[in-house]
């Protein structure tokens, strides 16, 4: 009896383990692209925040009226045809057929009008556009009419903006949400649907293929062209530890690693089955931003002396280290972009400590300590801070380096108070090339009230930026951009620290990556 019972128990146990194990088998034949994104997705409203991860999420779920191609030209995306009146004041956009929201309702012109208005309240380029928009209406279900008070040269560039805040289209009922309040329902018309039930903020996001999406016929080119989805699902799993992320990619537990750190990408490059390449041809532009309101950098001569000490190679070697992943770029506009030029760039191109020392001595610098905010949780910016401290000390400045995390820095950089009351003198950051393609970038503002942290005040710079917005053609834009760059260097707007490129790494069974400043997940196939 006992032996029978014992045998029965053993058989039951032997059957139970494989049964429980079988319960874990994934659905057969579902093609899943497993991605490690560069940050965790905490906010899901791409108009409410400029965070790049939310922008990338926006591209999954939403679509845009226009989109930028690899030649940096806006191309129609949701728009089928458009016309401009002879006086350049009336723009009429007709939507493509077959556009639907994820809940099945058709996309209408009213939805788009509300979406543009909401975007125009938050985005810098959008705000400038809205200053010349007299009216924005839906003349019928598929036609948007934009009437301007004067001709404006950047209408399509604004509506096809590639980076934050991207003018994503939302259903009217969501687009009417206050621009400073988050939209919480992700109903878009994009190539993927957001699976809210599977979202674990800070850890995992799941996107499902939108079977009703109608892609354009053109091949993909940056954000433009056909958005053909070749997988059933895309899973973003954020890894807080880069070494574990690297190992997971090597072990085949994930397919794509968006931004491996430079030291780890060097290991991945030599690993069989892994491809490492630069996907963003425009790269990132390093900035050392001065506070123009407080001494000593309220003096343009002191700013220019500091700029003249900032040799780009030193910054890039310290922060990036891998020569293939950086290059000097003395233009304030990304090298390789249409507005690249070298006007006024001698101050950075011929950086020299001895000359900078003389410039500082001539400036009347009185020894006021320079507070550098060092974000120790971001390796590149921490390295930039250390190099700046060394450079400024070498030319004779007194430096007070203050270590903090990025969150503390973002709140402190908004303060205009004196240093003794929590103010600052220098912080470092970078802009992706796509965000500083032209003088309209907020980083190049000369308006101390509405401009970017650092608050340079220069009426001439603002006039040039306004002229750029109304330039009639590319030649005129180039001429103005040259003057803008000259002016930025003349007033000592910021230290230009050069360009660096963050590679992507993926398994060699992943095909179809689109080279772009923003990583897109349509067109990608995974061969299993």
């Amino acid at each position, binding site marked *: 009896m006992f032996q029978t019972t014992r045998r029965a128990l053993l058989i039951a146990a032997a059957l139970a383990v494989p049964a429980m194990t079988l319960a874990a088998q994934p659905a057969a034949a579902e093609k899943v692209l497993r991605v490690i994104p560069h940050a965790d997705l905490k906010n899901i409203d791409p108009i409410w925040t400029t965070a790049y991860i939310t922008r990338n999420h926006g591209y999954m779920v939403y679509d845009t009226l226009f989109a930028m191609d690899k030649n940096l030209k806006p191309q129609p995306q949701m728009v089928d045809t458009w016309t401009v009146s002879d006086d350049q004041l009336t723009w009429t956009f007709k939507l493509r057929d077959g556009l639907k929201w994820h809940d099945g309702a058709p996309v209408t012109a009213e939805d788009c009008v509300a979406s543009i208005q909401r975007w125009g309240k938050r985005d810098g380029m959008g705000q400038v556009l809205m200053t010349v928009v007299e009216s924005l209406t839906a003349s019928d279900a598929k036609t948007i009419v934009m009437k301007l008070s004067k001709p404006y040269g950047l209408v399509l560039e604004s509506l096809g903006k590639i980076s934050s805040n991207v003018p994503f289209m939302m259903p009217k009922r969501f687009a009417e949400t206050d621009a400073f309040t988050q939209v919480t329902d992700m109903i878009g018309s994009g190539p993927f649907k957001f699976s809210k039930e599977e979202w674990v903020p800070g850890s995992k996001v799941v996107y499902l293929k939108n079977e009703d999406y109608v892609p354009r016929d053109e091949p993909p080119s940056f954000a433009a062209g056909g958005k053909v989805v070749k997988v059933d699902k895309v899973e973003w799993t954020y890894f807080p530890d880069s070494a*574990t992320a690297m190992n997971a990619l090597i072990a085949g537990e994930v397919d794509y690693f968006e931004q491996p750190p430079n030291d780890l990408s060097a290991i991945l490059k030599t690993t069989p089955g892994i491809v490492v390449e630069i996907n963003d041809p425009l790269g990132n532009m390093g900035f050392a931003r001065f506070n123009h309101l407080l001494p000593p950098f309220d003096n343009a001569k002191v700013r220019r002396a500091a700029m003249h000490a900032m040799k780009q190679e030193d910054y890039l070697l310290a922060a990036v280290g891998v020569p293939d992943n950086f290059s000097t770029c003395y233009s304030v506009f990304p090298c390789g972009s249409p507005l690249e030029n070298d006007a006024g760039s001698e101050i950075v191109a011929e950086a020299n400590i001895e000359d900078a020392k003389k410039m500082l001595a001539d400036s009347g610098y009185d020894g006021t300590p320079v507070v550098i905010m060092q974000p120790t949780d971001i390796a590149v910016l921490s390295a930039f801070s250390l190099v700046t401290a060394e450079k400024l000390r070498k030319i004779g400045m007194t430096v007070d380096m203050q270590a903090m995390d990025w969150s503390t820095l973002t709140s402190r950089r908004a303060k205009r108070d004196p240093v003794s009351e929590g103010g600052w003198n220098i912080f470092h950051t970078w802009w992706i090339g796509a965000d500083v393609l032209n003088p309209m970038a907020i980083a190049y503002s000369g308006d101390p009230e509405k401009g970017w942290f650092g608050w340079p005040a220069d009426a001439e710079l603002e006039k040039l930026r306004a002229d750029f917005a109304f330039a009639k053609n590319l030649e005129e834009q180039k001429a103005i951009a040259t003057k803008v760059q000259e002016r930025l260097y003349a007033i000592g707007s910021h230290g230009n620290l050069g360009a660096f490129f963050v590679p992507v790494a993926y398994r060699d069974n992943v095909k179809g990556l689109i080279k772009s400043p923003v990583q897109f997940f349509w067109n990608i196939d995974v061969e299993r």
Partner: protein
Amino acid sequence: MFSFIAKRMVATIPVMGVVALFVFLMLRLSPGDPASVIAGDYATPEDIERIRGQLGLSEPIVVQFGNWIWKLVHADLGISIFSNLPVTTLIVQRLEPTVMLSLTTLFFSVAVAVPLGVLAAWKAGTWIDRAIMIFAVAGFSIPVFVLGYMFIYEFAMVLKWLPVQGYRSPFEGLGPFLRHIVLPTLTLSVIFIALFARITRASVLEVLEEDYIRTARAKGQVESKVLISHALRNAAVPIVTVIGLGIALLIGGVVVTESVYNIPGLGRLVLDAILKRDYPIIQGLILMFSFVYIIINLMIDIVYTVIDPRIRY
């Protein structure tokens, strides 16, 4: 006993009140502001102030504290500033991985450490004792993340026996759960095995000098029974105390392990919230951890009465 438990539960209220005040003030007085993180690079000071207003951060501190306490007494931990989801939802999402990791670590550590400690005490002064104590010192000294990387390298990358990262719920299959929990458990257990083994050794060694141990041996009791039924039983109180303290350490250790092994647990949730200044999450989690720790201390005190019948409340 019941009146003891009731008194302890009532005493929890002022303790939680002090914790609530402390964590609230600590956050509000620390540098950093979620509004400026939210506002982003295009923010003007007006934008940041507007967001602060929407988040209730421009109210006087006393008003903010009062609002939060009012919600707390209604069991509302608030809404995450960044994800706009209820804090309770976020905690429930992340609770299981942390609980599973903590339980497996605790059980494994106790199961390995106590016998090791008893063995070391029994063989005090021999090579066995020294080997165990060397292991204990090493285990206590090596950082958790270093151990994690070493285990990942050996067991996942070289031998390919186990996965590199991730968590699978036991409700999705026992096999995947065990495969994914082994390495994180081993990683986190090492330090606790070291700690518990040392304390066990010291406590048992002290008890082995007692007269009743000599008497038990003189009466012909087998050595295993002397060690377990007499020595360990009498040495258990300080061991249980350290296990209780270890649970508090576990909360800190879990953060690092969850990061290294990519486990979406509460440790990572609180770390992310601190970096972003997501006040409702930080406040809610610290209160929850404090409450859990109070309950664990109460349970430890109750366990004393089981181990040592002389202890009565």
